């Protein structure tokens, strides 16, 4: 009975965890996962995989949610951070899915540093993105490497040629249908990953193409 109670208590505590107040988006994910493991340990909750996933997501939802489904945790990213980075390559944590995880001696130093970063006592100049590398991000990144996008960003809109726009949208011919469908897809992707500059650029194309995009 007491064991069951305990189990419920751990879950309740995790359910009640609220989003971390300070700015955490520029901080790298490995540090945030390390922080979450310590968060559980310091509350006498055994840091098992499921609890770590739930806690990491509750503490840092904007960094660990699925693209387009901000209410769900991206457990794949958390697992990569936990297992591949924090445990295997950096040795900040020890353990595995079966045994659970704990902070190592080495990890404690990085944990202290992470706490100072979260408290604002240390500023990290290298910033890290929060969007996992998925199809949407890949395509938008490719879009951003095109000449049309670069000219748009450099405010040289008038120099953008029609063929550059077709290249940006990855449309091999002047097919109206294809342009329409690619533009729609790109807008969907940009919207899903909330990339405002890509959205602006795509809106600009939509307007420039007149009837094409709306047809």
């Amino acid at each position: 009975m007491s064991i069951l109670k305990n189990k419920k208590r751990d879950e309740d505590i995790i359910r009640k965890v609220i989003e971390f107040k300070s700015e955490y988006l520029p901080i790298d994910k490995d540090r945030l996962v390390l922080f979450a493991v310590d968060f559980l340990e310091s509350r006498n909750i055994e840091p098992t995989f499921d609890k770590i996933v739930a806690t990491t997501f509750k503490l840092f939802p904007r960094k660990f949610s699925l693209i387009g489904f901000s209410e769900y945790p991206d457990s794949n990213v958390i697992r990569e951070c936990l297992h591949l980075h924090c445990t295997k390559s950096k040795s900040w944590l020890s353990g595995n899915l079966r045994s659970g995880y704990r902070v190592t001696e080495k990890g404690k130093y990085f944990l202290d540093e992470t706490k100072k970063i979260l408290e604002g006592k240390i500023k990290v100049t290298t910033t890290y993105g929060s969007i996992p590398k998925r199809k949407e991000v890949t395509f938008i990144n490719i879009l951003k490497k095109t000449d049309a996008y670069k000219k748009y960003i450099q405010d040289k809109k008038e120099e953008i040629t029609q063929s550059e726009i077709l290249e940006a949208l990855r449309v091999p011919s002047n097919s109206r249908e294809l342009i329409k469908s690619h533009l729609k897809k790109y807008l969907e992707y940009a919207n899903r990953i909330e990339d405002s500059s890509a959205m602006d650029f795509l809106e600009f194309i939509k307007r420039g193409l007149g009837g094409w995009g709306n047809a």
Partner: protein
Amino acid sequence: MPKELRIEAGEVHPKFWEKTVKEAFKNDPLRIIIELIKNSADSYTRLEKDGKAKSPFQIFVRIFCKKKSPPYIEVRDNAGGMNSDKLREALKYGTQTSMGEDVEAITSAEKGIGLKDAMMALEDNWLITIQDGLINERSKHPDFKTGVGKEDEKVGEEEREKLEISDNGTVVMGKLPDYFRERKFETICERLQEHFLMRKLLEYPNYKIYVIDGKSKARKLLEYKSPKVEKQILRKPFKINYNGDDYLMVLTINKSKDELLQGKPYGKSGLLFFYGKYSVVDFSWCRFDRDLSFSKFFGELQMGIQEIIRDPDEILVDEKRRGLDPEHPFNKLLFNKVNGILKEIQEEEETSKYSIDKSIKKEIIKEVNRMYKDVKGKGPPPERQFPIEPETFAFYPVYISMMEYEPKTSFLIVNSSVVSDKLEIFLSSTNPDIIVKKPIIKIDKDTIDDEFIVKPIELYSEKAKSKGEVIATSNQIGNSEKMGVEVLENPIFSPANGFAFIPDKTTVVDGGEKKVQLCIDRNVIGNSKEITFNSQSPINCPMEWILPNTENLGKYIIKNIIKIEIPIRVMSTGHIIGEQGTITALYENKASELNIKVISEPSITGLVRDIRPSGKDTKRISKFIEDEGILEIYYKHPLMKKYIIRKDFRVKPDFLIFVADTITREIIRAFVVQGFKENSSRFPIFNMDRPEPEIDEHTIREYYEQGPIMHEMFIKLAKAFRVGD
């Protein structure tokens, strides 16, 4: 023809013999004669070893050719002959060797075929031997029984004259079997001197093998003309470790100017596998048999297998005596090794078809090196970034791993806003085994010209597995920070088997020299003071090294390990870049091997010394090899393959731009890495344990600055790529 006086029983089932040895003879009937020749050669070798014979060692093969039936032969030597006991033993099946324990004498082990088998193959065969004035005669019957003629009878002068044996010697005679198809004397001579099993024997001028036409009495001395060597591609010793023992092999491969015939028994292109002086066991290119890319190559593999070849449990040749049994575990290891080496040669050969226009290459190398010199001397990047910006001060990184007996640098980053007048920060270690070289950091406000100050902290420890903290405190700021430190074991203190080169691989420039470390556990030191070194061309090193006396040994010892620095050098210049050599150090029963690769001489000073096409199987298009200063361009990359084979790549701008961009990024990354190594202030790296993110940042920054110029250069380079002769 001798007269048979009695018969002795046989030992082998005829069906087994027919399935194995007869099959082998049927496939290659000339081997019957070759086995008899080699048997005579072995007799001379044994005598020479005992100091009882002087060269030339003459062997006479008399052939009586007939138009419609196989020839009758006599093979004669004037070596030691045999007494009746030895002869009985020699013709008896079930004994591993008929002729004693000399390396060359184990003829039956060469390919599982020997004197008795050759006799069995001859019709109406007889072996007549004279030793110390006594004559013995024996023959082998088709049912394996042995016919006995004269036994230990005194030999008369007339008989000696008839047999042409003035002192001791042996004659084997008989009619060659029906499957021996050759009928012409000249053809048989020609084939004998081209046969792979004869080549090593014919290489030795001491052995003179004469073939005599029984009818015309014409005499021909056999000679083997090896293909003309255009270039020696490789001479490489290596070891095969089998059942805990090392077997030394020496592989030599040459290239000829002309295409050569491949395959057994008369082809010239192939690897001759042999042991001792002339005992050939196979002729093959292993898995590259019939691969036309080897048609200009030929070579040999000298096998140090004297121990294993005598072991009756280790039958290295296959049952049908075709050559080395590919299923035998020893041969598997050997073939794997040889195949690996051959693959490298094949790749190099293929690479030689690809080239880059020399003048354009030189021009580009010069320009890239000028750019590098320019960039690294430019000073700090325009917007200097610190990895962290602390409120007061902080260590970066907060935890370091260092190696015992090797200093390591970490950093303390101080916010200049907290410095008032003169600031002192004290550094202390919680573990006395971890030493902070300069325990006080002093910062004078007047000297500050940046928002943050980076102070290097040098640490040192001689104790592996130590752990501790370095604490930084400042009374003025009232703050303290800590950094975790762990000390790892240095590999130089754990040499394999207590006696090893560390590291066991190194590079040395063509014509250059350097020192390498040989680490020896003190407990390994025995009575001997001498360490001997064997080096293979092109590497040269001292032949021996004398260890200091016990009383003077102390100053060479750290942690029970004696570290000796051995000078090595590449003899002369002009070697093939990438050529490998080995140094083997031997001390009492210990041995260690150091593999050395020859790299190009830095005649072009600077970061990039050469740009060359490479046939490595890799997913990359190019890679900068730091150690060698070489930019490799991989033509096996699918995109390169696609365009380069079509040969119209020079007019494909998309392809050229892509290649140029890839090379640009690679070279800029090399700028950053090398700049960091040379302590260029333009490329500071703070987190030495994980420098990649910082290297990437510098690379991206420099890409935007240097990229456009480099793009143009490398498009030119891509256009200068040449394929074919």
